[in-house]
């Protein structure tokens, strides 16, 4: 290589021959290996373009030499994961529902799996922590429309309520006002009566005897004597502290006038049996299970 720079008097080194405002640039060449490494990285990058999907085309992209794609490799990894978990999930599928909670390993698996599936499928209505919302039951408490034992929870998840499934829970809160069964003042009276059942304050001057009479004639059939509820029909207990739609007078009047018929979809056929079990165990373990 030719060397046209002069010798710098201070450092004794050659200069590159460049000079700006009287400052000359010393020639400090890079070590050869450094340069080779640099060129190799460039060659590597070109190889990378060829081997991997890299260049965008108009509606697709270059696919690379080996057809590698992150999407395909993700699919493979997911399949591997499923295979690795297969054994555990098979054990879950085989175990009788009642035994799962007794086996710490199965319980842990069911709860973990259940939590994820719950988040994907149930959270939109029941909330991510199953705390519920108006019209959507809180699954952490011990008030169950259709029963809170493990089997009952399983059944509700499988077949739903008013879901249209052949085995679904059926039961209706009738629209006493809309259908003309009760007159508006009767509805107000019975609403106050229902509030009194769970110890809530009632409207001044409300006729308890009349309320009871209306209740006995119209409501006892479903809600039972004293309003204790009936899980066969999904009729809530009216004496406890938990209200699905609200316990204030206006809400109660609305409920009695318009009726209620919330739908819980059936998950049977949409999720595999092991997953359904996991979900039932998860919901049961939230704390409200009987």
């Amino acid at each position, binding site marked *: *290589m*030719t*060397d*046209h*720079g002069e010798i710098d008097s201070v450092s004794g080194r*050659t*200069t*590159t*021959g*460049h*000079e*700006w*405002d*009287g400052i000359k640039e010393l*020639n400090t*060449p*890079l*070590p*050869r*290996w*450094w*340069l080779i490494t640099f060129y190799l990285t460039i060659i590597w990058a070109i190889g990378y373009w060829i081997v991997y999907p890299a260049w965008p085309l108009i509606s697709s992209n270059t696919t690379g030499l080996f057809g590698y794609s992150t999407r395909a490799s993700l699919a493979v990894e997911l399949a591997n994961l499923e295979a690795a978990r297969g054994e555990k999930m098979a054990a879950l599928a085989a175990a009788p529902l009642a035994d799962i*909670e*007794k086996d*710490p390993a199965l*319980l*842990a698996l069911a*709860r973990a799996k259940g939590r994820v599936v719950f988040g994907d499928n149930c959270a939109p209505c029941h*909330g*991510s*922590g*199953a*705390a519920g919302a108006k019209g959507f039951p*809180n699954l*952490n*408490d*011990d*008030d169950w429309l259709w029963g809170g034992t493990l089997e009952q929870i399983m059944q509700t998840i499988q077949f739903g309520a008013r879901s249209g499934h052949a085995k679904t829970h059926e039961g209706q809160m009738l629209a006493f006002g809309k259908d003309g069964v009760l007159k508006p003042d009767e509805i107000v009276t019975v609403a106050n009566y229902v509030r009194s059942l769970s110890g809530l304050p009632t409207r001044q001057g409300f006729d308890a005897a009349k309320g009871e009479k209306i209740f006995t004639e119209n409501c006892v059939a479903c809600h039972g004597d004293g309003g204790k509820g009936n899980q066969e029909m999904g009729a809530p*207990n009216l004496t*406890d*502290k*938990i209200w699905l739609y609200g316990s204030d007078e206006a809400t109660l009047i609305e409920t009695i006038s318009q009726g209620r018929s919330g739908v819980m979809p059936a998950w049977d056929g949409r999720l595999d049996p092991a997953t359904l079990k996991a979900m039932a165990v998860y919901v049961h*373990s*939230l*704390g*409200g299970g009987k």
Partner: protein
Amino acid sequence: MNTAVNPNELTSDDDYGPLYASRKKVYPQSVSGTFRRIKWGLMAFCLGVYYFLPFVRWNRGLGAPNQAVLIDLPNSRFYFFFIELWPQEVYYFTGLLIVAAVALFLMNSIGGRLWCGYLCPQTVWTDLFYAVERLIEGDRRERMKKDKSSDPMKLERISEIVLKHSIWLLIAWWTGGAWVLYFNDAPTLVKQLITFQAPMIAYIWIGILTATTYVLAGYMREQVCTYMCPWPRIQAALTDEWALNVTYRYDRGEKRTSVKKAAELRALGEQVGDCVDCYQCVAVCPTGIDIRNGPQLECIQCGLCIDACDTVMKKIGRPTRLIAYDNDINIQRRQEGKPPIYRIVRPRTIIYSAMIAAVGGIMLYALLTRSLLDVNVLHDRNPVAVRLSDGSIRNAYTVRLLNKRGFDRVIAIDVDGPVNATVHVVGVDSVTPDRPMIVIGRDQTAELRLLVTAPAESNPEKSIPVHFHVTDIGLGEAASATDNFVAP
């Protein structure tokens, strides 16, 4: 002066210097002396520890790994003799790193690049590779001659080269091999490696480390220190005027000239220095520099030039340590006729030592008092509280128990919170009311869902603290955690 730039100079393509500089190969000569002996000793110690430590056994009881030092990645455990660390205790490593960093600063303020010269793996392995090279190809002169030889393809020469590279590769391979032994039971892994049963990742790592050792210690050598390592740049900022560095004591006079000429000049009453310009210090230097030019970035301060020069000084009957661990302050003082002073104890070194002692002390205290039974509690966030049909309030917690002992234990959980609260652990039928008992496996964690229910009459107004006490009912060992009980 401001000379105008000739535009042609900027555009013509023959005004550049060389694009790259090829390396000037260094041929360090063998040397003997104090620092060389220290370096041999430290090399034997460091390599001995590195190569053989995985084979040291440590009895931790049946079923537990019996390797003294083991990084058990699949089970996330780290074993170091009597210490077993869990993932949540990685802060010990943070502590260790802090101590290591400050120890580096301390070394630096006492003796400059002591780390570079004596302990850095790059130095140690390069030194070892040089020793092999010297053993097979001979010392400096011979190696230079062989490399220059116009007829390098003699059978003798080829066999020498093959032998050298084989031994290098063997050392490199053992270096990579020792590394993977820290991550698995060493004897088992050795057997697997020999029978090709070992996991692929082991072979990959051995391959990587064999390659890096071979290339870094066999070919890159001092270039790693000069071009790749950031430490030479950093340490310059950490050092101070009292730090002892390998220094040519120019106060011993100039000029440098041969023994004979020096004697003549002395006889004439002229000034001469002790240096006889024999270039021994340059010949032995593994980075190929001349320390007489003053402190240089390349100097790793290995002290070998001190040994070389001492040998010369003894031969010509002058005082030794013409090159020595010293500093400019003392050179100045001697020139002024004052005695040199060495100040190892100074604010800087005191602070560094104190920092090491403090961090080390904290780590030791934490280690000695750490509990082998642990409990962590996480309050359910959604919902934070649930009202039950009878008006009572329930809070749910995720309780994680950690059993760091090597045997199964029965743990009782007591909850001290709202009055008359009941406690239930999902999946556990308590024998004793309100005091669930859990069996937790050796060296394991258990995650429990724990429900605390306060009856309606003792409903807390807002939020009250709740304490979780866990007790090993066999050993009496206990741990506790505190959280809150919240009303909806």
